[in-house]
Protein backbone atom coordinates (compact mmCIF):
# COMPACT_ATOMS: atom_id res chain seq x y z
CA UNK A 1 0.00 0.00 0.00
CA UNK A 2 2.66 2.43 1.12
CA UNK A 3 4.97 1.35 -1.67
CA UNK A 4 2.30 2.08 -4.25
CA UNK A 5 1.51 5.53 -3.01
CA UNK A 6 5.17 6.41 -2.83
CA UNK A 7 5.61 5.13 -6.38
CA UNK A 8 2.71 7.32 -7.52
CA UNK A 9 4.18 10.35 -5.85
CA UNK A 10 7.50 9.50 -7.49
CA UNK A 11 5.94 9.30 -10.92
CA UNK A 12 3.90 12.45 -10.55
CA UNK A 13 6.86 14.35 -9.25
CA UNK A 14 9.37 13.23 -11.88
CA UNK A 15 8.89 16.20 -14.13
CA UNK A 16 8.98 18.76 -11.33
CA UNK A 17 12.68 18.83 -10.45
CA UNK A 18 14.61 17.35 -7.59
CA UNK A 19 13.53 19.82 -4.91
CA UNK A 20 9.87 19.24 -5.69
CA UNK A 21 10.41 15.49 -5.51
CA UNK A 22 12.00 15.74 -2.10
CA UNK A 23 9.21 17.96 -0.75
CA UNK A 24 6.34 15.89 -2.07
CA UNK A 25 7.92 12.62 -0.99
CA UNK A 26 8.54 14.03 2.42
CA UNK A 27 4.98 15.35 2.71
CA UNK A 28 3.45 12.18 1.40
CA UNK A 29 5.27 9.94 3.82
CA UNK A 30 4.64 12.31 6.72
CA UNK A 31 0.90 12.28 5.97
CA UNK A 32 0.91 8.52 5.61
CA UNK A 33 2.48 7.99 8.99
CA UNK A 34 0.11 10.47 10.61
CA UNK A 35 -3.01 8.78 9.28
CA UNK A 36 -1.75 5.32 10.12
CA UNK A 37 -0.80 6.35 13.63
CA UNK A 38 -4.15 8.01 14.20
CA UNK A 39 -6.15 5.03 13.01
CA UNK A 40 -4.02 2.56 14.98
CA UNK A 41 -4.93 4.35 18.19
CA UNK A 42 -8.32 3.28 19.46
CA UNK A 43 -11.12 5.77 19.94
CA UNK A 44 -10.74 5.34 23.70
CA UNK A 45 -7.08 6.30 23.52
CA UNK A 46 -7.81 9.42 21.53
CA UNK A 47 -10.97 10.68 23.20
CA UNK A 48 -12.34 10.76 26.68
CA UNK A 49 -15.97 10.40 27.68
CA UNK A 50 -16.95 12.26 30.86
CA UNK A 51 -20.34 12.16 32.52
CA UNK A 52 -21.49 15.74 32.95
CA UNK A 53 -25.05 15.10 34.13
CA UNK A 54 -26.69 12.17 35.82
CA UNK A 55 -29.96 11.25 37.51
CA UNK A 56 -32.17 12.44 34.67
CA UNK A 57 -35.47 10.72 33.79
CA UNK A 58 -35.84 9.97 30.08
CA UNK A 59 -33.60 12.83 28.92
CA UNK A 60 -34.19 13.87 25.29
CA UNK A 61 -31.89 16.80 24.48
CA UNK A 62 -29.41 19.21 26.02
CA UNK A 63 -28.18 22.76 25.49
CA UNK A 64 -24.93 24.12 26.87
CA UNK A 65 -25.41 27.68 28.13
CA UNK A 66 -22.61 30.27 27.77
CA UNK A 67 -21.91 30.09 31.52
CA UNK A 68 -21.31 26.33 31.31
CA UNK A 69 -24.64 25.28 32.80
CA UNK A 70 -26.52 22.62 30.92
CA UNK A 71 -30.25 22.69 30.25
CA UNK A 72 -31.71 19.23 29.68
CA UNK A 73 -35.21 18.25 28.56
CA UNK A 74 -36.79 15.18 30.14
CA UNK A 75 -39.43 13.57 27.95
CA UNK A 76 -41.66 13.08 31.01
CA UNK A 77 -42.30 16.83 30.72
CA UNK A 78 -39.60 18.51 32.78
CA UNK A 79 -36.84 20.96 32.00
CA UNK A 80 -33.78 20.59 34.23
CA UNK A 81 -30.69 22.62 34.98
CA UNK A 82 -27.28 21.08 35.57
CA UNK A 83 -24.65 23.19 37.33
CA UNK A 84 -21.05 22.02 37.67
CA UNK A 85 -22.08 18.46 36.91
CA UNK A 86 -24.82 18.43 39.56
CA UNK A 87 -28.48 18.11 38.65
CA UNK A 88 -30.42 20.93 40.26
CA UNK A 89 -33.30 19.28 42.16
CA UNK A 90 -35.51 22.29 41.44
CA UNK A 91 -37.13 21.90 38.03
CA UNK A 92 -37.73 24.82 35.68
CA UNK A 93 -41.28 26.14 35.84
CA UNK A 94 -43.38 27.79 33.15
CA UNK A 95 -43.75 24.93 30.66
CA UNK A 96 -47.14 24.53 28.96
CA UNK A 97 -49.30 21.39 29.16
CA UNK A 98 -47.30 18.52 27.66
CA UNK A 99 -48.55 15.06 26.71
CA UNK A 100 -46.11 12.38 27.90
CA UNK A 101 -47.43 9.33 26.10
CA UNK A 102 -46.06 6.98 23.47
CA UNK A 103 -43.14 8.78 21.82
CA UNK A 104 -44.40 12.15 22.97
CA UNK A 105 -43.39 14.52 25.74
CA UNK A 106 -40.96 17.38 26.13
CA UNK A 107 -38.60 16.93 23.20
CA UNK A 108 -35.88 19.20 21.81
CA UNK A 109 -34.15 22.31 23.10
CA UNK A 110 -31.98 24.78 21.22
CA UNK A 111 -30.56 28.20 21.89
CA UNK A 112 -31.01 31.13 19.52
CA UNK A 113 -27.73 31.84 17.68
CA UNK A 114 -27.68 35.23 19.48
CA UNK A 115 -28.63 33.70 22.82
CA UNK A 116 -25.90 35.61 24.63
CA UNK A 117 -27.65 38.83 23.60
CA UNK A 118 -31.34 37.94 23.52
CA UNK A 119 -31.69 34.92 25.86
CA UNK A 120 -34.20 33.05 23.69
CA UNK A 121 -34.52 29.32 24.35
CA UNK A 122 -36.55 27.21 21.92
CA UNK A 123 -38.38 24.06 23.01
CA UNK A 124 -40.46 21.49 21.14
CA UNK A 125 -43.04 19.23 22.78
CA UNK A 126 -46.16 17.14 22.30
CA UNK A 127 -49.03 19.54 22.71
CA UNK A 128 -52.45 18.07 23.56
CA UNK A 129 -55.46 19.25 21.57
CA UNK A 130 -56.87 22.57 22.67
CA UNK A 131 -60.43 23.78 22.15
CA UNK A 132 -60.95 24.93 18.59
CA UNK A 133 -58.00 23.05 17.12
CA UNK A 134 -58.67 20.52 14.38
CA UNK A 135 -58.07 16.80 14.82
CA UNK A 136 -58.82 13.89 17.14
CA UNK A 137 -60.19 14.44 20.63
CA UNK A 138 -57.45 13.54 23.11
CA UNK A 139 -55.02 13.85 20.21
CA UNK A 140 -51.78 15.80 20.15
CA UNK A 141 -49.09 17.11 17.85
CA UNK A 142 -45.69 18.77 17.96
CA UNK A 143 -45.43 22.40 19.02
CA UNK A 144 -42.64 24.97 19.26
CA UNK A 145 -42.25 27.74 21.82
CA UNK A 146 -39.57 30.15 22.84
CA UNK A 147 -38.96 31.65 26.26
CA UNK A 148 -36.27 33.15 28.47
CA UNK A 149 -34.83 31.62 31.60
CA UNK A 150 -35.06 33.72 34.74
CA UNK A 151 -33.78 31.85 37.77
CA UNK A 152 -35.78 28.63 37.71
CA UNK A 153 -38.61 29.93 35.58
CA UNK A 154 -39.35 30.26 31.90
CA UNK A 155 -40.63 33.77 31.27
CA UNK A 156 -41.89 35.68 28.22
CA UNK A 157 -43.17 32.40 26.79
CA UNK A 158 -44.17 32.76 23.12
CA UNK A 159 -46.01 29.99 21.31
CA UNK A 160 -44.56 30.00 17.82
CA UNK A 161 -46.04 26.99 16.04
CA UNK A 162 -48.27 23.97 16.47
CA UNK A 163 -48.44 21.15 13.95
CA UNK A 164 -52.01 20.33 12.95
CA UNK A 165 -54.20 18.37 12.98
CA UNK A 166 -54.00 16.73 16.41
CA UNK A 167 -53.67 12.98 16.11
CA UNK A 168 -54.52 10.37 18.72
CA UNK A 169 -51.66 7.98 18.20
CA UNK A 170 -48.40 7.26 19.97
CA UNK A 171 -45.61 7.43 17.38
CA UNK A 172 -43.59 9.91 15.32
CA UNK A 173 -43.46 13.44 16.69
CA UNK A 174 -40.12 14.38 15.04
CA UNK A 175 -39.34 17.51 17.06
CA UNK A 176 -35.82 18.63 16.12
CA UNK A 177 -35.13 22.41 16.19
CA UNK A 178 -32.30 24.01 14.23
CA UNK A 179 -31.25 27.56 13.22
CA UNK A 180 -29.51 28.65 10.06
CA UNK A 181 -28.01 31.79 11.56
CA UNK A 182 -29.87 33.92 9.00
CA UNK A 183 -32.91 34.54 11.17
CA UNK A 184 -34.80 31.33 10.41
CA UNK A 185 -35.68 28.36 12.55
CA UNK A 186 -36.49 24.87 11.24
CA UNK A 187 -38.63 22.29 13.05
CA UNK A 188 -38.96 18.65 11.99
CA UNK A 189 -42.35 16.93 12.23
CA UNK A 190 -43.16 13.21 12.15
CA UNK A 191 -46.19 11.84 10.33
CA UNK A 192 -47.74 10.57 13.60
CA UNK A 193 -48.17 7.08 12.17
CA UNK A 194 -50.34 8.28 9.27
CA UNK A 195 -47.92 7.85 6.41
CA UNK A 196 -50.06 9.10 3.56
CA UNK A 197 -50.35 12.49 5.30
CA UNK A 198 -46.64 13.08 4.66
CA UNK A 199 -47.62 13.84 1.04
CA UNK A 200 -50.56 16.09 1.98
CA UNK A 201 -49.50 19.75 2.08
CA UNK A 202 -52.65 20.72 3.98
CA UNK A 203 -51.42 18.70 6.97
CA UNK A 204 -48.26 19.31 8.99
CA UNK A 205 -47.46 15.63 9.48
CA UNK A 206 -44.21 14.42 7.90
CA UNK A 207 -42.91 17.91 7.14
CA UNK A 208 -40.07 20.24 7.96
CA UNK A 209 -41.30 23.76 8.59
CA UNK A 210 -39.35 27.00 8.37
CA UNK A 211 -40.25 30.08 10.38
CA UNK A 212 -38.71 33.43 11.22
CA UNK A 213 -37.16 33.15 14.65
CA UNK A 214 -40.19 35.05 16.03
CA UNK A 215 -42.60 32.48 14.58
CA UNK A 216 -43.77 34.54 11.60
CA UNK A 217 -44.06 32.68 8.34
CA UNK A 218 -41.51 33.78 5.74
CA UNK A 219 -43.12 35.09 2.56
CA UNK A 220 -40.56 33.22 0.44
CA UNK A 221 -41.50 29.80 1.81
CA UNK A 222 -42.19 27.43 -1.10
CA UNK A 223 -45.92 26.78 -0.58
CA UNK A 224 -47.19 30.19 0.52
CA UNK A 225 -49.16 30.49 -2.73
CA UNK A 226 -50.23 26.84 -2.94
CA UNK A 227 -53.95 26.41 -2.31
CA UNK A 228 -54.77 24.71 1.02
CA UNK A 229 -51.09 24.20 1.84
CA UNK A 230 -49.66 25.22 5.21
CA UNK A 231 -47.34 28.10 4.28
CA UNK A 232 -44.94 27.11 7.08
CA UNK A 233 -43.91 23.98 5.14
CA UNK A 234 -40.37 23.96 3.79
CA UNK A 235 -40.14 20.28 2.71
CA UNK A 236 -42.42 17.24 2.79
CA UNK A 237 -42.53 13.45 2.40
CA UNK A 238 -40.79 12.68 5.72
CA UNK A 239 -41.53 9.83 8.11
CA UNK A 240 -40.01 10.70 11.51
CA UNK A 241 -37.08 13.12 11.27
CA UNK A 242 -35.08 13.34 14.50
CA UNK A 243 -31.74 14.60 13.27
CA UNK A 244 -31.22 18.11 11.90
CA UNK A 245 -28.03 20.16 11.62
CA UNK A 246 -27.17 23.22 9.56
CA UNK A 247 -23.70 23.64 8.11
CA UNK A 248 -23.06 27.37 8.28
CA UNK A 249 -19.99 27.10 6.07
CA UNK A 250 -21.67 25.36 3.15
CA UNK A 251 -25.29 26.34 3.73
CA UNK A 252 -26.33 22.68 3.68
CA UNK A 253 -29.14 21.51 5.98
CA UNK A 254 -28.63 17.85 6.90
CA UNK A 255 -31.51 15.72 8.12
CA UNK A 256 -31.95 12.11 9.08
CA UNK A 257 -35.17 10.28 9.68
CA UNK A 258 -36.41 6.99 11.06
CA UNK A 259 -37.58 5.03 8.04
CA UNK A 260 -39.48 1.78 7.92
CA UNK A 261 -37.53 -1.48 8.37
CA UNK A 262 -34.23 -1.00 6.52
CA UNK A 263 -35.07 2.49 5.30
CA UNK A 264 -33.56 5.05 7.71
CA UNK A 265 -32.36 7.98 5.60
CA UNK A 266 -29.82 10.77 5.57
CA UNK A 267 -31.02 13.68 3.40
CA UNK A 268 -30.01 17.16 2.36
CA UNK A 269 -32.99 19.44 2.92
CA UNK A 270 -33.70 21.94 0.17
CA UNK A 271 -36.60 24.31 -0.31
CA UNK A 272 -39.84 22.77 -1.53
CA UNK A 273 -38.49 19.26 -2.03
CA UNK A 274 -40.47 16.06 -1.61
CA UNK A 275 -38.48 13.30 0.13
CA UNK A 276 -40.87 10.63 -1.00
CA UNK A 277 -42.35 8.94 2.06
CA UNK A 278 -44.36 6.71 1.63
CA UNK A 279 -44.38 6.78 -2.19
CA UNK A 280 -40.73 5.79 -2.43
CA UNK A 281 -38.67 4.10 0.28
CA UNK A 282 -35.75 1.70 0.62
CA UNK A 283 -37.44 -0.01 3.55
CA UNK A 284 -40.33 -2.40 4.01
CA UNK A 285 -42.99 -2.24 6.68
CA UNK A 286 -42.28 -3.79 10.06
CA UNK A 287 -44.87 -6.49 9.41
CA UNK A 288 -42.71 -7.33 6.36
CA UNK A 289 -45.33 -6.04 3.93
CA UNK A 290 -44.28 -3.92 0.96
CA UNK A 291 -44.98 -0.21 1.41
CA UNK A 292 -43.88 0.70 -2.10
CA UNK A 293 -42.27 -1.15 -4.98
CA UNK A 294 -40.47 2.08 -5.86
CA UNK A 295 -37.25 3.48 -4.50
CA UNK A 296 -36.92 6.18 -7.15
CA UNK A 297 -39.46 8.50 -8.67
CA UNK A 298 -39.25 11.70 -10.69
CA UNK A 299 -39.84 14.76 -8.54
CA UNK A 300 -38.79 12.98 -5.35
CA UNK A 301 -35.42 13.21 -3.66
CA UNK A 302 -33.01 10.36 -3.12
CA UNK A 303 -31.32 9.99 0.27
CA UNK A 304 -27.59 10.70 0.48
CA UNK A 305 -27.29 7.36 2.25
CA UNK A 306 -29.67 4.93 3.95
CA UNK A 307 -29.24 2.40 6.73
CA UNK A 308 -30.09 -1.27 6.30
CA UNK A 309 -30.54 -2.64 8.88
CA UNK A 310 -32.10 0.40 10.50
CA UNK A 311 -30.07 1.98 13.30
CA UNK A 312 -32.94 4.20 14.54
CA UNK A 313 -30.98 7.43 14.09
CA UNK A 314 -31.57 10.07 16.73
CA UNK A 315 -29.54 13.24 17.11
CA UNK A 316 -26.85 14.50 14.78
CA UNK A 317 -24.10 17.05 14.83
CA UNK A 318 -21.58 18.40 12.41
CA UNK A 319 -18.11 18.50 13.89
CA UNK A 320 -16.71 21.97 13.28
CA UNK A 321 -13.62 21.90 15.40
CA UNK A 322 -9.99 21.10 14.61
CA UNK A 323 -9.63 19.55 18.10
CA UNK A 324 -11.31 16.49 16.58
CA UNK A 325 -8.80 16.16 13.80
CA UNK A 326 -10.20 12.98 12.24
CA UNK A 327 -13.85 14.01 12.57
CA UNK A 328 -13.60 17.69 11.66
CA UNK A 329 -16.16 18.57 8.98
CA UNK A 330 -17.93 15.22 9.37
CA UNK A 331 -21.28 14.15 10.80
CA UNK A 332 -21.84 12.23 14.02
CA UNK A 333 -25.16 10.38 14.21
CA UNK A 334 -26.68 8.71 17.29
CA UNK A 335 -28.32 5.29 17.25
CA UNK A 336 -31.22 4.60 19.58
CA UNK A 337 -31.28 0.98 18.55
CA UNK A 338 -27.65 -0.05 18.76
CA UNK A 339 -26.46 2.28 21.53
CA UNK A 340 -23.56 3.82 19.59
CA UNK A 341 -22.54 6.77 17.47
CA UNK A 342 -21.73 6.61 13.80
CA UNK A 343 -19.06 8.80 12.29
CA UNK A 344 -20.03 9.67 8.71
CA UNK A 345 -17.05 10.83 6.68
CA UNK A 346 -18.08 13.56 4.26
CA UNK A 347 -16.47 14.54 1.01
CA UNK A 348 -18.46 17.49 -0.20
CA UNK A 349 -22.05 16.33 0.11
CA UNK A 350 -21.25 12.62 -0.19
CA UNK A 351 -20.80 10.12 2.61
CA UNK A 352 -17.68 8.13 1.82
CA UNK A 353 -17.51 6.05 4.99
CA UNK A 354 -19.65 5.08 7.96
CA UNK A 355 -17.82 4.03 11.07
CA UNK A 356 -19.27 2.81 14.37
CA UNK A 357 -17.75 4.63 17.34
CA UNK A 358 -18.34 4.36 21.10
CA UNK A 359 -20.09 1.02 21.10
CA UNK A 360 -22.39 0.36 24.06
CA UNK A 361 -22.47 4.06 24.92
CA UNK A 362 -26.22 3.98 25.54
CA UNK A 363 -29.57 4.71 23.97
CA UNK A 364 -28.57 7.91 22.17
CA UNK A 365 -31.23 10.65 21.97
CA UNK A 366 -29.18 13.70 21.16
CA UNK A 367 -25.73 14.56 19.81
CA UNK A 368 -24.43 18.10 19.57
CA UNK A 369 -21.31 20.20 19.65
CA UNK A 370 -21.30 22.73 22.47
CA UNK A 371 -19.84 26.25 22.26
CA UNK A 372 -16.73 24.80 23.93
CA UNK A 373 -16.18 22.59 20.88
CA UNK A 374 -16.87 19.33 22.72
CA UNK A 375 -19.55 16.82 21.80
CA UNK A 376 -22.48 16.36 24.19
CA UNK A 377 -24.46 13.12 23.98
CA UNK A 378 -27.76 12.49 25.78
CA UNK A 379 -28.33 8.88 26.88
CA UNK A 380 -31.90 7.91 27.59
CA UNK A 381 -31.30 4.55 29.30
CA UNK A 382 -28.79 5.72 31.90
CA UNK A 383 -30.33 9.18 32.37
CA UNK A 384 -27.00 10.84 31.61
CA UNK A 385 -25.38 13.48 29.48
CA UNK A 386 -21.80 12.65 28.51
CA UNK A 387 -19.13 14.90 26.99
CA UNK A 388 -16.67 13.64 24.41
CA UNK A 389 -13.43 15.57 24.18
CA UNK A 390 -9.97 14.88 22.77
CA UNK A 391 -7.28 13.68 25.15
CA UNK A 392 -4.27 15.91 25.26
Amino acid at each position, binding site marked *: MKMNSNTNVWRRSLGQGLAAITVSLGLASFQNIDTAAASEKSIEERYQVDTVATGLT*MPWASALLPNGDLLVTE*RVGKLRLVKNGVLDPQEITGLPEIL*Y*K*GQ*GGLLDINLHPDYAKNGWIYLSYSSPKKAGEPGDDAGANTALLRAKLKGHALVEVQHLFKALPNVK*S*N*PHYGGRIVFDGKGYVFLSLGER*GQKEKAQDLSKDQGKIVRLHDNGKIPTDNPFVKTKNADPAIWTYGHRNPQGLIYNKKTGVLWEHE*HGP*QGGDELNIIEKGNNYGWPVITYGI*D*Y*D*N*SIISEDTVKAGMEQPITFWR*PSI*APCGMTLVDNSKFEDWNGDLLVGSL*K*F*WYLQHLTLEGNKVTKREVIFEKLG*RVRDVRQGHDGNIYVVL*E*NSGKVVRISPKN
Partner: protein
Amino acid sequence: MKIILSLVIASLIGSNVFLKSSDELEKSIARGKMVYSENCISCHMGTGEGVTGTFPPLAQSDYLIEQQEESIRAIKYGLIGKITVNGVPYDNMMPSPGLDDEEIADVMNYILNTWDYKSDQPMITAQQVKLVKEE
Protein backbone atom coordinates in the same frame (compact mmCIF):
# COMPACT_ATOMS: atom_id res chain seq x y z
CA MET B 1 -84.89 -33.79 38.46
CA LYS B 2 -83.54 -30.81 40.33
CA ILE B 3 -80.04 -32.11 39.90
CA ILE B 4 -80.49 -32.59 36.16
CA LEU B 5 -82.01 -29.13 35.80
CA SER B 6 -79.18 -27.46 37.67
CA LEU B 7 -76.67 -29.41 35.58
CA VAL B 8 -78.35 -28.18 32.42
CA ILE B 9 -78.41 -24.62 33.72
CA ALA B 10 -74.81 -24.89 34.79
CA SER B 11 -73.73 -26.20 31.40
CA LEU B 12 -75.72 -23.49 29.64
CA ILE B 13 -74.13 -20.82 31.77
CA GLY B 14 -70.78 -22.46 31.28
CA SER B 15 -71.06 -22.52 27.49
CA ASN B 16 -72.37 -18.98 27.47
CA VAL B 17 -69.46 -17.83 29.50
CA PHE B 18 -67.14 -19.74 27.24
CA LEU B 19 -68.68 -18.29 24.08
CA LYS B 20 -68.66 -14.83 25.53
CA SER B 21 -65.02 -14.99 26.65
CA SER B 22 -63.90 -16.50 23.36
CA ASP B 23 -65.63 -13.65 21.54
CA GLU B 24 -64.08 -11.16 23.96
CA LEU B 25 -60.68 -12.69 23.38
CA GLU B 26 -61.03 -12.39 19.62
CA LYS B 27 -61.97 -8.72 19.97
CA SER B 28 -59.11 -8.11 22.37
CA ILE B 29 -56.65 -9.77 19.98
CA ALA B 30 -57.91 -7.63 17.10
CA ARG B 31 -57.46 -4.44 19.14
CA GLY B 32 -54.09 -5.72 20.34
CA LYS B 33 -52.88 -6.11 16.78
CA MET B 34 -53.39 -2.37 16.25
CA VAL B 35 -51.65 -1.55 19.52
CA TYR B 36 -48.75 -3.80 18.52
CA SER B 37 -48.28 -2.30 15.07
CA GLU B 38 -48.23 1.21 16.50
CA ASN B 39 -46.09 0.73 19.57
CA CYS B 40 -44.07 -2.47 19.52
CA ILE B 41 -43.38 -3.56 15.97
CA SER B 42 -40.38 -1.38 15.12
CA CYS B 43 -38.23 -3.08 17.78
CA HIS B 44 -39.88 -6.47 18.32
CA MET B 45 -40.51 -6.88 14.57
CA GLY B 46 -43.48 -8.04 12.55
CA THR B 47 -43.50 -11.64 13.66
CA GLY B 48 -42.28 -11.03 17.19
CA GLU B 49 -38.80 -12.32 16.45
CA GLY B 50 -37.06 -9.23 17.87
CA VAL B 51 -33.39 -8.58 17.08
CA THR B 52 -31.24 -11.22 18.76
CA GLY B 53 -29.03 -9.65 21.41
CA THR B 54 -30.64 -6.21 21.02
CA PHE B 55 -34.42 -6.49 21.35
CA PRO B 56 -35.80 -9.71 22.89
CA PRO B 57 -38.23 -11.91 20.94
CA LEU B 58 -41.89 -11.97 21.91
CA ALA B 59 -42.78 -14.99 19.79
CA GLN B 60 -41.95 -18.28 21.50
CA SER B 61 -40.53 -16.33 24.44
CA ASP B 62 -39.96 -18.23 27.68
CA TYR B 63 -39.89 -14.92 29.56
CA LEU B 64 -43.36 -13.94 28.39
CA ILE B 65 -44.86 -17.25 29.51
CA GLU B 66 -42.95 -17.80 32.71
CA GLN B 67 -42.79 -14.20 33.90
CA GLN B 68 -46.13 -12.89 32.83
CA GLU B 69 -46.51 -10.37 35.62
CA GLU B 70 -43.02 -9.03 34.88
CA SER B 71 -43.98 -8.81 31.21
CA ILE B 72 -47.10 -6.80 32.00
CA ARG B 73 -45.09 -4.60 34.35
CA ALA B 74 -42.56 -3.98 31.57
CA ILE B 75 -45.26 -2.81 29.18
CA LYS B 76 -46.93 -0.72 31.87
CA TYR B 77 -43.90 1.04 33.32
CA GLY B 78 -41.04 0.35 30.92
CA LEU B 79 -38.13 -2.01 31.47
CA ILE B 80 -34.48 -1.31 32.00
CA GLY B 81 -31.54 -3.59 32.66
CA LYS B 82 -30.60 -7.21 32.23
CA ILE B 83 -33.03 -9.96 31.38
CA THR B 84 -32.54 -13.35 29.76
CA VAL B 85 -34.92 -14.52 27.06
CA ASN B 86 -34.63 -17.99 25.54
CA GLY B 87 -31.10 -18.23 26.93
CA VAL B 88 -29.90 -14.97 25.36
CA PRO B 89 -28.96 -12.05 27.63
CA TYR B 90 -30.44 -8.59 26.91
CA ASP B 91 -29.34 -5.35 28.57
CA ASN B 92 -31.44 -2.67 26.96
CA MET B 93 -34.17 -0.22 27.77
CA MET B 94 -37.80 -0.16 26.79
CA PRO B 95 -39.42 3.19 27.50
CA SER B 96 -42.99 2.97 28.77
CA PRO B 97 -45.13 3.12 25.64
CA GLY B 98 -47.87 4.92 27.55
CA LEU B 99 -50.69 2.40 27.09
CA ASP B 100 -53.76 2.16 29.28
CA ASP B 101 -54.67 -1.07 31.11
CA GLU B 102 -57.02 -2.27 28.39
CA GLU B 103 -54.47 -1.63 25.64
CA ILE B 104 -51.87 -3.57 27.62
CA ALA B 105 -54.27 -6.50 28.08
CA ASP B 106 -55.12 -6.35 24.37
CA VAL B 107 -51.51 -6.36 23.21
CA MET B 108 -50.65 -9.21 25.60
CA ASN B 109 -53.58 -11.21 24.23
CA TYR B 110 -52.44 -10.47 20.69
CA ILE B 111 -48.86 -11.56 21.40
CA LEU B 112 -49.90 -14.71 23.30
CA ASN B 113 -52.27 -15.82 20.55
CA THR B 114 -50.23 -15.07 17.44
CA TRP B 115 -47.14 -16.44 15.69
CA ASP B 116 -47.96 -20.10 16.37
CA TYR B 117 -47.92 -19.55 20.09
CA LYS B 118 -49.05 -22.80 21.66
CA SER B 119 -49.28 -21.24 25.04
CA ASP B 120 -52.97 -21.88 25.84
CA GLN B 121 -52.83 -18.90 28.13
CA PRO B 122 -56.07 -17.69 29.64
CA MET B 123 -57.22 -14.29 28.45
CA ILE B 124 -55.59 -11.36 30.19
CA THR B 125 -57.98 -8.68 31.39
CA ALA B 126 -57.58 -4.98 32.08
CA GLN B 127 -58.43 -5.78 35.69
CA GLN B 128 -55.37 -8.05 35.93
CA VAL B 129 -53.20 -5.35 34.41
CA LYS B 130 -54.56 -2.81 36.87
CA LEU B 131 -53.32 -4.93 39.78
CA VAL B 132 -49.72 -4.93 38.52
CA LYS B 133 -47.80 -2.20 40.32
CA GLU B 134 -44.46 -0.58 39.67
CA GLU B 135 -41.65 -2.07 41.73
